[in-house]
């Protein structure tokens, strides 16, 4: 149809009434003129009009034909089909409600999960031309570990992803052509003082090209100049709109100073409201300010190339691709490796699109969840197809009549499909509403560690996808029953009074659909089972230290006011004393980093084999640390209050370090040191291992040095923990009060109980496990409805046969067995096909599992057992109905 023609038709459609009367007038004129002609040629006037009318033909029919040439035929037919569909659906409200609800459930879950996936993985970063932004990191090939055997899992690792050394960054920036620029970005935390309550703020220290790369400009003031990106000139700061509002009440503060860690910074700019939420960069904390990175010269020198410490984002030049940039970086990395073998031998720069990199950790989890809801939509469709088939029994004769009266098979299929599409459309609408509600629920339940999730909303992409999914679902669950029902020979169907003529055939179809449902739901049950077992395994991991009733807090003493290790130690010792005096406080400990709150990795060597480093975590701990955390002494002694500056430098090591360094020999009395220039430390004790980095982390080698001997080590005391008799949470305010009593300018941050930290750490796993369990339950319920439906229909159709069997003396038990055998067959066929599918698919969720393999037989067996057990219980209902068939009634029915 041409465009002009389309508009002519449209114009006609709008003036339909006029057109009809015009045509009528034309035809009347014609007849009258003909009559006049006839009468002038001698026909009597009375007959002339009749003759003219006869010659003209049936005016109504002609008017109709003329109208049809104008109308959009398909549109009219569609309207007819829609009306018809609406009428038939209204006549069977039970079917309609169940079908719409089932589809809505599938679509709703699908919409909600897809919204999350869209927000997290698909949506562009809110930056102009975001597609060209990349993340850059360094991959460090691991040298085989001399201390670990080949069997040791920790010694076989691929290249380690590492932050970038600033000295290398300068080369990546200057000696490549692919990038418009590369910017260093790092979190930098500072105490805001000098204006009321001191506060710990999080900021980003960024190179001066950061804002230009993001195409960002401040709402007020300016961004950093290249000069300000050097030590000594870097006392300038940009603040966020949020901080400006919260701490300054939107006053005019441009050019004034702000005290960060007791150092004055000039405020040169205020960022616009909503400037790049840092979750978009995968940063979990709220960012309040930006300062220049200003890398010190020693970090930028060739000696600094080993210090991998900055995150890097960049922007590709127009015209250069990821592949060409990668190739360029590879060549450059090789050049650097040959020029600086000591630091760069194993280092290669790597890049990925920034968005993909930000969400890389949640990618698998998102895809698994999306696949799971996809399966639910399929199960929902199968279920509705099943229902539609049942309904077709009742409509058998109606359809046969339509075909007998000359409706083409295509037209009947179209009518039936329209019905399915109406159900799908209603399901889609309800599903969208359900989805909108679920989105809110998901975002509330989702852990904050999933980047970008808080921006989840129903946008055009989600809406369109939902509509397409709903449409395809409608076709999917409608086409099969439609084809099935139009295969019927109308003559047979009309001749026979038996409504169940196609019953047998139909049960075969329904069984196939139900088996598919059971199969898909088996896949989901197994997936949920695998995640659930992993989750339980994680929860059951013994951390090796006591986590109950311990509250930890960070008290980051700024170097500007606590310059020496001694000053810091005195502060913490005083604080410990004050806190221990509080009622209900059982013990107090301080160190540089409490478990699960970061650490300080460092290379350790032993006196008996110098120059061979082992990576270990170093903690400077107070005397009460081991007692507070419940770490057990295995050999030697713990640290005591006499281990102070001026005394022998001592160290306590963990079991893992003892094993790797000393195998079977006694480590007590041996000497180790950090790096090759620090003083030797005498090992005085060995303590039990802990999982410092949380439940899913490995045990790392560990040294504990006395907090009172940190003068020779650059360790900064910062974390404090109290173990309490009662709920530790209530001591948060007390810690703050005691800190302010010692120093009113000192903020306290990151106040969390150990149990809270553990709970946050497993939150992501809990979230995905919970969702997959929920999805499996939904799919399972739908599949059970399917099984129940097929069995009920079978029983209903076999009433007569069952009656005869019973009349001939079949026991109730054998009738029960008859029905249950069919149920068992459905479950078995479904479960085994699902099992095979799950065996293949579970590989893809390997990275989500913990402590079990993707082919964990326990999960498979439990899933199938649950399926079989619940399935059989549900089957008992129709089975019992079969046994209660009264032979007399049944036979009379025949």
């Amino acid at each position, binding site marked *: 149809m041409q465009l*002009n*023609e389309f508009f*002519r*038709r449209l114009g*006609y459609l709008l003036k339909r009434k006029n057109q009809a009367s*015009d*045509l009528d*007038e*034309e*035809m009347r*004129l*014609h007849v009258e*003129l*003909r009559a006049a*002609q006839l009468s002038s040629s001698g026909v009597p006037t009375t007959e002339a009009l009749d003759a003219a009318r*006869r*010659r*003209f*033909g*049936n*005016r109504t*029919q*002609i008017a109709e*034909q*003329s109208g*049809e*040439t*104008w109308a959009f035929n398909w549109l009219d037919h569609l309207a007819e089909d829609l009306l018809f569909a609406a009428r038939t659906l209204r006549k069977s409200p039970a079917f309609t409600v169940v079908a719409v609800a089932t589809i809505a459930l599938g679509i709703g879950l699908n919409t909600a999960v897809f919204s999350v996936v869209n927000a997290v993985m698909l949506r562009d970063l809110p930056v102009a031309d975001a597609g060209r932004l990349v993340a850059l990191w360094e991959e460090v090939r691991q040298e085989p570990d001399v201390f670990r055997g080949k069997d040791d899992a920790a010694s076989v690792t691929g290249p380690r992803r590492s932050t970038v050394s600033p000295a290398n960054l300068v080369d990546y920036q200057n000696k490549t052509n692919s990038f418009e620029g590369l910017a260093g970005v790092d979190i930098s935390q500072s105490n805001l003082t000098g204006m009321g309550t001191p506060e710990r703020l999080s900021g980003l220290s960024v190179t001066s090209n950061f804002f230009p790369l993001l195409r960002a400009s401040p709402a007020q003031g300016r961004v950093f100049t290249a000069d300000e990106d050097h030590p000594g000139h870097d006392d300038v700061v940009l603040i966020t709109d949020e901080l400006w509002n919260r701490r300054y009440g939107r006053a005019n503060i441009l050019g004034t100073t702000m005290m960060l860690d007791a150092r004055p910074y000039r405020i040169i700019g205020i960022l616009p409201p909503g400037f790049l939420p840092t979750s978009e960069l995968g940063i979990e904390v709220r960012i309040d300010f930006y300062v220049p990175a200003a890398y010190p010269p020693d970090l930028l020198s060739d000696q600094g190339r080993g210090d991998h410490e900055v995150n890097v984002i960049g922007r590709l030049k127009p015209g250069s691709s990821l592949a060409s940039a990668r190739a360029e970086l590879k060549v450059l990395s090789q050049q650097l490796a040959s020029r600086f073998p000591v630091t760069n031998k194993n280092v290669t720069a790597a890049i990925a699109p920034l968005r993909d990199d930000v969400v890389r950790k949640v990618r698998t989890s998102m895809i698994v969840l999306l696949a799971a809801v996809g399966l639910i939509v399929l199960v929902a469709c199968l279920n509705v197809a099943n229902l539609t088939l049942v309904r077709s029994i009742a409509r058998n004769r109606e359809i046969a009549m339509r075909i007998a009266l000359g409706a083409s098979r295509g037209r009947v299929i179209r009518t039936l499909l329209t019905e399915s599409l109406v159900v799908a459309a209603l399901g889609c609408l309800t599903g969208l509403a359900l989805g909108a509600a679920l989105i809110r629920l998901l975002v509330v339940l989702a852990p904050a560690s999933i980047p970008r999730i808080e921006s989840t909303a129903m946008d055009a992409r989600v809406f369109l996808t939902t509509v397409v999914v709903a449409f395809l679902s409608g076709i999917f669950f409608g086409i099969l029953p439609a084809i099935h029902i139009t295969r019927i020979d109308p003559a047979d169907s009309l001749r026979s009074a038996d409504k169940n003529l196609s019953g047998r055939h139909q049960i075969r179809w329904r069984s196939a659909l139900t088996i598919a449902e059971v199969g898909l739901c088996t896949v989901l049950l197994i997936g949920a089972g695998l995640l659930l077992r992993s989750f339980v395994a994680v929860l059951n991991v013994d951390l090796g230290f006591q986590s109950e009733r311990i509250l930890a807090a960070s008290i980051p003493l700024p170097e500007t006011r606590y310059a020496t290790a001694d000053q810091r130690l005195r502060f913490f010792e005083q604080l410990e004393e004050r806190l221990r005096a509080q009622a209900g406080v059982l013990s107090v400990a301080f160190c540089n980093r409490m478990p699960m709150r970061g650490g300080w990795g460092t290379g350790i060597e032993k006196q008996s084999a110098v120059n061979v480093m082992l990576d270990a975590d170093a903690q400077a701990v107070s005397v009460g640390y081991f007692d507070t955390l419940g770490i057990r002494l295995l050999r030697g002694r713990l640290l005591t209050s006499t281990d102070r500056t001026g005394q022998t430098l001592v160290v306590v090591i963990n079991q893992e370090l003892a094993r790797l360094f000393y195998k079977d020999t006694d480590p007590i009395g041996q000497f180790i040191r950090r790096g090759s220039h620090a003083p030797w430390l005498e090992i005085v004790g060995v303590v039990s291992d802990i999982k410092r980095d949380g439940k899913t982390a490995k045990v790392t080698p560990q040294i504990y040095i006395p907090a009172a001997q940190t003068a020779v080590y650059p360790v900064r005391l910062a974390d404090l923990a109290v173990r309490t008799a009662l709920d530790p949470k209530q001591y948060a305010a007390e810690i703050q009060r005691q800190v302010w009593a010692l120093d009113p300018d000192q903020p306290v941050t990151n106040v969390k109980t150990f149990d809270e930290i553990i709970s946050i750490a497993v939150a992501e796993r809990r979230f995905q496990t919970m969702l997959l369990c929920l999805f499996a339950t939904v799919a399972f319920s739908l599949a059970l409805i399917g099984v129940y439906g097929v069995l009920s229909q079978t029983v209903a159709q076999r009433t007569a046969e069952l009656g005869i069997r019973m009349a001939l003396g079949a026991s109730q038990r054998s009738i029960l067995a008859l029905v249950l055998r069919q149920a068992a067959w459905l479950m078995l066929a479904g479960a085994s096909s699902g099992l095979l599918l799950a065996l293949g698919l579970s590989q893809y969720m390997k990275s989500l599992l913990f402590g079990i393999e993707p082919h964990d037989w326990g999960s498979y067996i439990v899933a199938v057992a649950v399926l079989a057990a619940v399935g059989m219980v549900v089957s008992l209902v129709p089975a019992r109905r079969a046994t209660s068939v009264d032979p007399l009634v049944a036979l009379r029915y025949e």
Partner: protein
Amino acid sequence: MTPLNDPRDQIPPGTLDMLILKTLARSGEMHGFEIANTIQLTSEDVLQVEEGSLYPALQRMLVKGWLVGEWGKTAENRRARYYRLTARGRTQLNQEIERYHRVTRAIERIVQPA
């Protein structure tokens, strides 16, 4: 209704459009009755338009944009819709005539004695 013994022939199927177009091409503007009459007269009463079927055909050609219709007055001062050929209608007419000739020549070759 045409009497069975009517000597006039029905027009061959598929040619009605061409006849209408040609008639209008020759005489400019006409209303429905005039078109029917003209076809009958021009063919010296051999061809008779099935009068009713003229109107759906006219409507179809309006849709296609081959004709435009405008309301005017007849000699007897009656309101009537006058149809006129458009440029596209003229192109269509040429195509139809060409096809008609092709078909009739082919048919003639078959029915003529060898």
